[in-house]
């Protein structure tokens, strides 16, 4: 699992790739809270490189969303593969986090 961040205007893109599971979930939380500490408010997590996500991965997304909201910012997701979409649906998390077509457009769409 690798995470890279990229600034695009006032949006911070977090690209995730590989497996977002119980082993890698804590890293995502760290990357996002790091971005918030350095001033990011609009965070878009790009899931297009994620082949597999489990509930711990979803937990990390929720934890990151909370961190963003507490800083009066927001976190959105985009580019989810079919497996990721299925898990989002299964847990009803798509009712909270809208899966956008692409993370780059998550704040404009």
């Amino acid at each position: 699992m690798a995470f890279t961040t990229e600034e695009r205007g006032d949006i911070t893109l977090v690209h995730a790739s590989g497996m977002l599971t119980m082993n890698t979930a804590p890293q995502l939380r760290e990357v996002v809270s790091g971005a918030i500490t350095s001033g990011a408010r609009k965070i878009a997590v790009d899931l297009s490189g994620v082949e597999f996500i489990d509930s711990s991965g979803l937990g990390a997304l929720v934890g990151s969303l909370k961190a963003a909201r507490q800083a009066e910012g927001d976190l959105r997701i985009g580019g989810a593969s079919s497996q990721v979409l299925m898990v989002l649906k299964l847990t009803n998390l798509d009712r909270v986090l809208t899966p956008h077509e692409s993370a780059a457009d998550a704040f404009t769409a």
Partner: protein
Amino acid sequence: MTRILVVRILVFLTIVLGVNYVAWRWLASVNWEAWWIAVPLVAAETYSLIDVILFGVTVWRIKKERPKEPMPDGRTVDVFIATYNEPIELVMTTARAAKAIRYPHRTWVLDDGDRPELKRAAEAAGIGYITRSPDWAGRPRHAKAGNLNNALMSTDGEFLLILDADQIPVPEILDETLPYFHDEKVALVQTPQVFSNVATGDPLGSQAPLFYGPIQEGKDGWNAAFFCGSNAVLRREALMQLGIRGYVADVEATVAEALDASATALRRARRRADALATEVLTEAYEAVRQARRELRSGVAFGELTFRVQERVRQAERRLVDRQLAAVRDDLAALGLLEPGEDETQIDLEAAVDVLASRELSPLGALGTVAATLNKIDVSRSHEAQPVLPVATISVTEDMATSMRMHASGWSSRFHSHTLAYGLAPEDLGTMLTQRLRWAQGTMQVMLKENPLFLRGLSLGQKLMYFSTMWSYLGGFATIVYIAAPVAYLCFGVMPVDAWNVDFFVRFIPFFIINQFLFLAAARGAPTWRGQQYSFALFPVWIRAVTSAVNNVWFGRELGFSVTKKTRDSEHRNQWGLVRWQIAAAVVLAVSAIVGVIRLTAGLGEPIGTFVNVVWIIFDMVILSVLVWAVRYDGYDAAQQQQQQRKEQEA
């Protein structure tokens, strides 16, 4: 195979005979003239019949299958030892035994007491140590469920073995339980809780051979074996999934409620506001109304709540901007400020940032408005963690958690071989506290998330959860069983039309077959102690029901305390703990005497008196267990006495 056949035949006979008896009671033998005792008695008998039928349904499917294929090394396991205030040495004994478990794993002490000595001891032994994160400060702690939820966030094993601080595991515990998880649907494997410090005869009824035997095996047959809080292995993925679903459900409820409350608060505030504030309030009100429309049309909560907050924030900011601009113009008019002076300009912008934050903004001044607006949020900020995998609706987190797992399609297994040995309470007071807590927790779950109405459970699973809840309602029936013979013997009031042949031919076969069913289902395990306590602790069961009702429906405190794992060295007056039972025993004894006197005086009727006196003797034999319990001095003392007796004999 033959055993299950015998059990099933006995279940069938018990149900047929029981329904026959209770139907006859309702239809042909209620003494309606004394309805005030006759109806409660027949209702109590109906309660007991349903209890027996549910037991019969449980043991109908007794299951004891073991997986054959072992789990190869390499899966990740975290062993959690949950502690709050137990002595350090006791926790460390369990922790060292946990570390010595054969299957590769990591061991963690979850210290809710945040004790530096325990931290040092754990680290010195090479064992992980976890306490609550700072997020929990000032938020609901949720006792043991909170402790486990906190640890789930800082560990990453695929499976979790949960142990109470006193439950010493054997090294094979994971080798025996992990193989069940070859089935990808299995989320929980529960093993028995057995206690090593229980004196011969089990004076406090600590062991639960019926529950951790035929009852759990029977529930297993219906895919409804319960999580019992300790000595169980759980699949992390299942727990986390529950946590996420719970989070979404909570957000859904909170957001809808907060939007309604905000709309109301804003409407009220607008009526009383001055012109400047009215504009912000109107904008906020429009934002809230739009959010409600979006909610109804199915827009995701995340963006909807963010948009509301953004719109309100911008309105607040515009207002503050305008107010400060006015200040600046005033200052310029007074000649105190050069228009366009750079430094001050910057200062004023910083001031806008500060003054537009929710606490200081004009809306902040309208306390309820700000508070309700802040609740339109998806971060569940009233909780320490947005995701709470272990259920927090009850003081006994275990049953609610497994029930939700079953409702979302996971399976559970019961492994009937003992793999950990714990410590039971050694005095009556502690034992009573523990039983009260279990009963309260079960009642809370029944009132908050009744399994009969929980979607996703099969009919069998609903009945299995309901059966355990139903059995905790028995305290009320016991009161009736005590009152009925008193009414007859002292006042000659008959709750039954007649104690005659009609009664005996229906009641006695049912009673006897029912006892045989218990014997056959328990396979020789001692169940009498358990039967005695389920009757004798009636005040505990009643208090559990009333306190849970007060808590769930009227929001009162439960008055709940953690079970101590060590014995109280100071003796309180133990007899006071069973005052209601003593009162009942005295009333029963007096009634028996009065009944005999009335009979000799020609007032009573021989068969009726005989039946009721036998009934009273039966009640007294059951209650007698408490005499032993009150006088019990703990395991060590009991061992010593036994030793002395042996020496004297020799």
